[in-house]
């Protein structure tokens, strides 16, 4: 870039303030082309461009800006000076023309990104001028003429370039020859002359997108020459899913990333993210890095999806640059930046309607009553309901005495609202770029008058300023307020009450008053609403980082960067509990009008109470990074070294009062002076590390990379605190080899790569090496004196240290059909060693230990993942189909196992987190079957038959078998289609997973209703041949209290995760109303699912259905760009 004469008069901070003020003004006034910012930049003398620079400097600017390299003999450029103002242009074509062609030079494209600069070919001695061809070259998109385009006759050195008007004249040997048009920033075109003398050509711009440059941790790399197993998804893909939480838009988008959506609760609807499955017995969550800063509050889930430029996942040893926290892979999030150009204002508005993907189908009142009678019958008790009762429940003729309640139906709205509004302005000059955004998101729960609600307000200001030739400073500031509200009974009890809801009890009495509870006052049509007070969680988060990039003068290729980040968040939670009221009828009393007399009574608690807590947390990160790049002819070397430290501290305080006289003041002072309490605590931690990376490539063909990190964590004792985590990866771009190009020319951009490395995991409770004593619940002496109590936290382990991930990866990248088909595929084999686990399976409990974690476990995880993308244009239809899949299978190689456990029950050799189940083998159809088989004491017909696995003639715990599946799928896949036709665009994502199982067992019997599916075709004395068990009363039966395979169901599924159809207003129409672009669209999320589970959503996080079900979203949106 250009030197800015007098800029150094200003100190950095003043300048920044000035920029910020200017921008603030700009966004506030909402102007476009002649915004104050723009004007001030152009007119201000400080920014006036006056210089003349050397041509080589000018070229290196272009190299930086466009990520290309020029190869030339330096003598060629010697003494050539150019006006730096040329570089101000938006048009690369213009620049190249001005810089090279006018200086008597020419160039040729060597590889994708490499251009060789040559002297302009001297006009050849024309012995015989045969033919002349002329024409004009234009930009196919803008229609602009293109000066400086190289035109060469194929197979010769004969060529010229277009002039300032984009025209060329060339003498060719024959009109049957072929011309090759090439130009920086445009795709080359090969055009047979075919006898014409006028050959006009339109060149298509090459897209310089993030897909070409990838973020790899502390720097970016070219995708083509990177050697890690790295997958990226662009922000626009993430925006396709109409969800509030960005985590939920990742599912199915990235090969090897498993995202299981756990809940649909507003403000909670995050996903469990796993990169390449699970690797450790402990915490398997990946490290999330946002704009270079690790572990930021709220992570990915609270980030405004519209602010995301791209998300990159480091899946293999390339993550070793993040050392101690990288063992489970790293998710790198980059937020949007401004681009040079006019201010671009975008506004989007999304209105969504949500509903649960699935609510369980529960038995109706008649069926339920019948089943309760069966329970009574099996217990030898008198049946509770008469045939007449059951008939009344069935007919629905007596809604007062014999209701038939569908609790979900009574409690839920058909559709709930969610909305998102975003506004952003971005743009910039050569010296400063900015991206500013404001957004709000709002999400309401499923309940009528829902007590569940989430609102978020966020802003972001990413500003980057080129202070002078050598100094670039950027400031990213983002802030948000998160307001999450839930009714005081929360998700657990509320959904428990819904699942248990007896169809024979009224949710509302026929006169509209809420009916009785099952217990605790839990009638979900009331407790799911705002009628019970509120539990309001408010968080204010402010995250900042300042980045200073410094090109060290006199040392070409050396760059220093420093990042300072300070994140602050305040949390303020208020739990205001007030009594609520339900109506009871004794089923006897009628008033004079013969209407039942209902009694209103206080439920839940007797008087209001308030719990308030506040926490105040910060995290500070500081790093310094040096980067050096140097080309030695065919050798390119890239070095990176850095040091980083991070400190954080959380403080927490809470206060409580009860026995409020009234519910009208929800403040602490108004509560009882006697019944009150307070509490508080804090914790802190720090990490410090040194890291480096060396990249080397020869002719961009043979690639090798080393990364290493020396990482220290407060979690471990001095001496074991630091760990070194190295990684090496190599790549070979076979497609750059002549033999390849000759033999398999259709496989372009073919690269094989392999990596091995170690990363670490320190995610355990800190201070395992100390013998410390923690405060317990206390004990009451002297009748009413609560005194403190302390207990030993654990036996210390003085040698506790890192868990190590050994990661091997082998992968290929390939392109075919001129880049229209792109393939990436990987095999990986990960061995996690020194896993921090407790030796509590083998040490007898008579030792009485509370054990520390020790570095004992070993888990191996292998699998494959890959992605294949095909894009093309047929007529007016352009499309992009991308499929990805990942398979991961883990196995415990070693962990602590009790020595006496029989082999078929051992965990070792099985995947992690598997459990023991009795083997269900149908049901006993009659007493004879029980008598003739080993069976559970007291078994009766209709009970589930357990297999006598060890053949000892009796059924006991030794007959349980370890099932090698759990609730994490092994194979996950996504298939996305994006297409555009004229002004329409369409995108869809199908997503599926297999290999997971879920236990489906609800709280049923007298305690609550049955799933319809367990009611259907159940064993009864009248249906003795059924394969399904008899009616049960909660865990009273041995086959309901002992986990068995009857209730274990496949959770395989395939679902239409998201779909979107959009229409772009024609440009001509837009121009007339001053719009650059207007797009309207409709979209959906979780629209349909094919699965075997049927009862709950296949991603359900609860075996009893007592959780907030996943969302389906119908959405319509509009986005405007000025």
């Amino acid at each position, binding site marked *: 870039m250009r030197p800015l004469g007098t800029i150094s008069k200003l100190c950095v901070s003043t300048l920044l303030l000035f920029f910020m003020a200017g921008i603030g003004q700009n966004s506030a006034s909402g102007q476009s082309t002649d915004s104050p910012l723009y004007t001030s930049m152009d007119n201000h003398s400080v920014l006036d461009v006056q210089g003349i620079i050397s041509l080589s400097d000018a070229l290196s600017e272009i190299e930086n800006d466009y990520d290309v390299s020029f190869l030339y003999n330096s003598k060629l450029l010697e003494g050539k000076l150019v006006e730096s103002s040329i570089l101000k242009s938006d048009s690369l074509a213009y620049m190249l023309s001005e810089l090279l062609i006018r200086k008597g030079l020419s160039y040729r494209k060597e590889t994708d990104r490499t251009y060789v600069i040559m002297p302009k070919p001297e006009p050849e001695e024309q012995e015989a001028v045969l033919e002349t061809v002329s024409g004009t070259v234009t930009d196919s998109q803008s229609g602009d003429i293109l000066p400086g385009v190289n035109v060469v006759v194929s197979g010769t050195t004969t060529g010229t370039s277009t002039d300032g008007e984009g025209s060329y004249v060339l003498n060719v040997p024959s009109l049957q020859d072929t011309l090759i048009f090439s130009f920086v920033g445009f795709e080359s075109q090969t055009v047979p002359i075919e006898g014409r003398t006028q050959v006009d050509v339109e060149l298509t711009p090459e897209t310089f997108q993030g897909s070409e440059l990838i973020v790899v941790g502390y720097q970016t790399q070219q995708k083509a020459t990177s050697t890690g197993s790295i997958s990226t998804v662009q922000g626009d893909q993430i925006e396709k899913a109409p969800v509030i939480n960005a985590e939920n838009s990742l599912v199915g988008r990235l090969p090897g990333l498993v995202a299981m959506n756990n809940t649909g609760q507003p403000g909670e609807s995050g996903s469990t993210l796993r990169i390449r499955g699970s690797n450790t017995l402990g915490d398997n969550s990946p490290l999330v890095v946002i704009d270079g800063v690790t572990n930021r509050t709220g992570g990915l889930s609270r980030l405004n999806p519209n602010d995301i430029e791209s998300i990159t996942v480091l899946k293999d040893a390339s993550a070793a640059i993040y050392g101690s926290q990288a063992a489970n892979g790293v998710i790198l999030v980059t937020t949007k930046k401004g681009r040079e150009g006019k201010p671009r204002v975008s506004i989007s508005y999304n209105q969504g309607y949500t509903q649960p993907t699935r609510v369980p189908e529960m038995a109706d009142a008649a069926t339920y009553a019948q089943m309760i009678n069966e329970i009574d019958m099996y217990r030898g008790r008198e049946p509770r309901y008469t045939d007449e009762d059951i008939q009344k429940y069935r007919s629905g003729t007596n809604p007062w005495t014999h209701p038939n309640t569908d609790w979900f139906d009574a409690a839920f709205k058909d559709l709930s609202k969610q909305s998102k509004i975003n506004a952003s302005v971005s743009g910039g000059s050569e010296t400063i770029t900015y991206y500013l955004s404001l957004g709000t998101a709002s999400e309401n729960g499923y309940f009528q008058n829902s007590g569940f609600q989430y609102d978020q307000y966020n802003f972001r200001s990413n500003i980057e300023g080129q202070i002078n030739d050598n100094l670039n400073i950027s400031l990213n500031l983002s802030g948000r307020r998160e307001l999450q509200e839930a009714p005081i009974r929360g998700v657990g009890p509320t959904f428990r009450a819904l699942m248990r809801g007896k169809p024979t009890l009224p949710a509302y009495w026929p006169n509209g008053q809420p009916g009785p509870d099952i217990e605790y006052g839990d009638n979900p049509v009331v407790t799911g609403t705002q009628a019970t007070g509120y539990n309001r969680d408010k968080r204010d988060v402010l995250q900042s980082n300042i980045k200073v990039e410094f090109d060290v003068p006199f040392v070409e290729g050396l760059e220093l960067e420093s990042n300072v980040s300070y994140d602050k968040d305040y949390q303020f939670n208020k739990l205001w509990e007030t009594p609520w009221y339900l109506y009871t*009828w*004794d089923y006897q009393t009628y008033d004079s009008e013969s209407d039942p007399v209902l009694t209103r009574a206080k439920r839940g608690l007797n008087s209001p109470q308030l719990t308030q807590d506040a926490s105040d947390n910060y995290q500070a990160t500081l790093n310094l990074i040096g980067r050096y790049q140097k080309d030695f002819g065919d050798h390119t070397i890239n070095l990176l070294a850095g040091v980083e430290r991070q400190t954080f501290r959380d403080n927490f305080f809470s206060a409580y009062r009860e026995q409020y006289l009234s519910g009208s003041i929800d403040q602490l002072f108004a509560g009882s002076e006697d019944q009150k309490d307070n509490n508080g605590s804090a914790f802190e931690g720090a990490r410090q590390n040194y890291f480096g990376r060396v990249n080397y490539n020869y002719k961009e063909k043979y690639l090798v990379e080393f990364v290493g990190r020396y990482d220290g964590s407060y979690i471990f004792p001095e001496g074991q605190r630091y760990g070194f985590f190295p990684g090496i990866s190599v790549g070979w771009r076979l497609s750059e080899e002549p033999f390849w190009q000759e033999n398999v020319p259709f496989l372009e951009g073919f690269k094989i790569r392999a990596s091995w490395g170690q990363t670490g995991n320190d995610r355990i409770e*800190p201070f395992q090496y100390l013998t410390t004593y923690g405060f317990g619940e206390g004990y*009451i002496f002297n009748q*009413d004196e609560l005194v403190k109590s302390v207990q030993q936290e654990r036996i210390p382990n003085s040698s506790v240290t890192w868990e190590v991930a050994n990661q091997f990866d082998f992968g290929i990248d390939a392109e075919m059909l001129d880049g229209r088909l792109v393939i990436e595929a990987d095999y990986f084999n990960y061995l996690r060693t020194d896993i921090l686990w407790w030796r509590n399976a083998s040490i007898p409990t008579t030792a*009485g230990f509370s054990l520390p974690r020790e570095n004992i476990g070993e888990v191996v995880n292998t699998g494959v993942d890959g992605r294949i993308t095909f894009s093309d244009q047929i007529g007016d239809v352009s499309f992009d189909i991308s499929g990805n899949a990942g398979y991961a299978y883990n196995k415990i190689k070693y962990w602590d196992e009790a020595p006496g456990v029989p082999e078929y029950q051992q965990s070792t050799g099985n995947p992690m987190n598997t459990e023991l189940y009795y083997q269900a083998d149908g049901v006993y159809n009659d007493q004879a079957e029980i008598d003739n088989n080993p069976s559970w004491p007291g078994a009766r017909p209709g009970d589930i038959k357990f297999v006598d696995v060890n053949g000892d003639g009796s059924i006991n*715990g030794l007959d349980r078998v370890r099932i090698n599946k759990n609730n994490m799928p092994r194979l996950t896949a996504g298939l996305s289609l994006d297409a555009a036709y004229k002004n329409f665009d369409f995108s869809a994502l199908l997503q599926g997973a297999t290999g997971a199982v879920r236990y489906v067992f609800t709280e049923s019997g007298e305690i609550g209703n049955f799933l319809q599916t367990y009611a259907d075709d159940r064993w009864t004395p009248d249906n003795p041949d059924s394969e399904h068990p008899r009616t049960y009363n909660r*865990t009273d039966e041995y086959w309901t209290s002992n986990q068995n395979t009857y209730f274990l169901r496949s959770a395989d599924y395939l679902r239409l995760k998201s779909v979107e159809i959009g229409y772009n207003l024609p440009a001509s129409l837009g121009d007339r109303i001053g719009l650059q672009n207007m797009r309207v669209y409709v979209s959906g999320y979780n629209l349909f699912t094919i699965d075997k589970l049927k009862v709950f959503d296949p991603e359900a996080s609860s075996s009893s259905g007592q959780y907030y079900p996943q969302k389906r979203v119908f959405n319509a949106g509009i986005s405007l760009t000025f």
Partner: protein
Amino acid sequence: MKKFILTKLVFVICIVLVITSCDDQILNKKPLDQISEDDLWNDPALVETYVNDIYRGVGHGFFAVNVSSGVDETIITHGWNDAPVKQSNLTPDDLGLFGNGVVVPFDHFHWEDLYSNIRSANVFLEEIEESPVEQSLKDRLTGEVHFLRAYFYHNLVKLHGGVPIVKQAYGLDDDFLVERDSFEDCINFIVEDLDKAASLLPTVIEGDKAHASKGAALALKSRILTYAASDLYAQNPGGMAVTGYTGGDQMARWRRAKDAAKAVMDLGYSLYMGNPAPGDSTAKNYGDLFLQKDHQEIIFARYFLQNQSYPWNQADMGLFHGPNGWHNWGGDTPLGQMVDAYEMEDGTKFSWQEYRNGDPIYGESPYQNRDPRFYASIFYNGSEWRDRPADMIEQDPEGIVETAYFEMEGQSDLRPGLDTRDGPIEDWNGTYTGYYMRKFLDPNVDHQFYRQEVPWIFIRYAEILLNYAEASIELGEEGDARNALNMIRQRAGMPDIPSGESGQALVERYQNERRIELAYENHRYFDVRRWMIAPDVYENGEGVRIIGRLNNDGSYDYEYNIIEIDQRQWNDNAYFLPIPRYEMERNENLVQNPGYN
């Protein structure tokens, strides 16, 4: 050149930042919410807090389901894995009520938790030696910890028989593969700890009964010696050293037990309202003894506070077990057999047959003229209780328990009582037996909203008198036995035992007296085992279905039908709990109890 000044400045700032960041000290963090080992053992206040925590291991008896539902006292309405115990279907994988289930919270009866508490005690006993706290505090705390360790072992031994005696705090590299010690050695070890405790602790007759005292140590010694002298361990049907005595003299053991009880009796404790004045409600006296926070009968107790938070299934007896018509859960409800065990007020046995025959002592209902303790321990149809909650107060302004079904004028359907399983409030929490538990329930607390502050009494003086009586009977010193029993009966308002009652009749009278006096207090489960009467008492549970027949004047005549509501059975392996499978699999040196595999 000015631009280089700026760039150099930035460069220097960066370097400074990095240099300051390369300070390893920043990794030296300490937990902000924990105390270091040195601090703890050098600070008397903290040493005491450590002992306070060990107390938590003693547990209590105020759970949503209690041991009474594992024996012939109550049935748990909700079916929380009570079947294995009451049907003797225990396995090493499933210890039923004594296992690690989600609902069942008897930490103080769990092998694993007990040994964890024993370790805490052992750590203390090792660390206190070097601790610079003053001798008097050291003595008191040492005494308390010996008592607590004995208490933990006493729980283990009464459930499992002989268990490994662990006297040291192991380190990570020690050999943990211990063997079970004999029943006899365990008893001796417990007694040794208790003697040590008694020698170090003060006697507390009135005051803080939550702290262990000399009385508590001697009382626990009386209990464990009474247990040890019992038939189960003398006859030792299991035949192993861990299941009982393989030699020795049972009578000598009874003598030792009697002496131990006598030692407590000599300390000065007395029965609460032991000499009722004429006109006193002895029923109220008996009920109040459990509601008062302190009196001279309490030897060792645990206290609760309304505001303390406890797990959902602990310390809220009114909510757990009160009648459903008060929005309570009707959890442990008395079996018909338990209710029928209450004598008539004249000391004769209750009999449905004689009630139906119209024996004049019975009055109008089987619930009239019973042992006064009946009225303090049982809710029956017609019991008076506190005001109904707002939604039922109009239907029942007086707060009378309704477990009957009532005929209605002009209707064929019966009206289910407010506290039945067909009532209008939380019907599924209604009793199966027709009764609810009343003992321990504070009538002044609205249990649907508030926790009561009734203490759990581990050991009270009445138990010592009963232990004394039992040993006396076994030793043939029946006069001593009758005297002790009569003290208890006098407080209860019951007539003395006929002076001629002797032999088996006296044994049965004693056993029934202990059953009634200590109802729901976690004794009966162990008593029926050590007396070896379990095979007889594990019979199917009974309840009563009551129908109120409408008279012309609007009053009701009640019809009582005895119904069977619960299946129970006995197997001899249930004399002891199995050693849990998880422990057997870890330690090959352990021998399983008889009858389990």
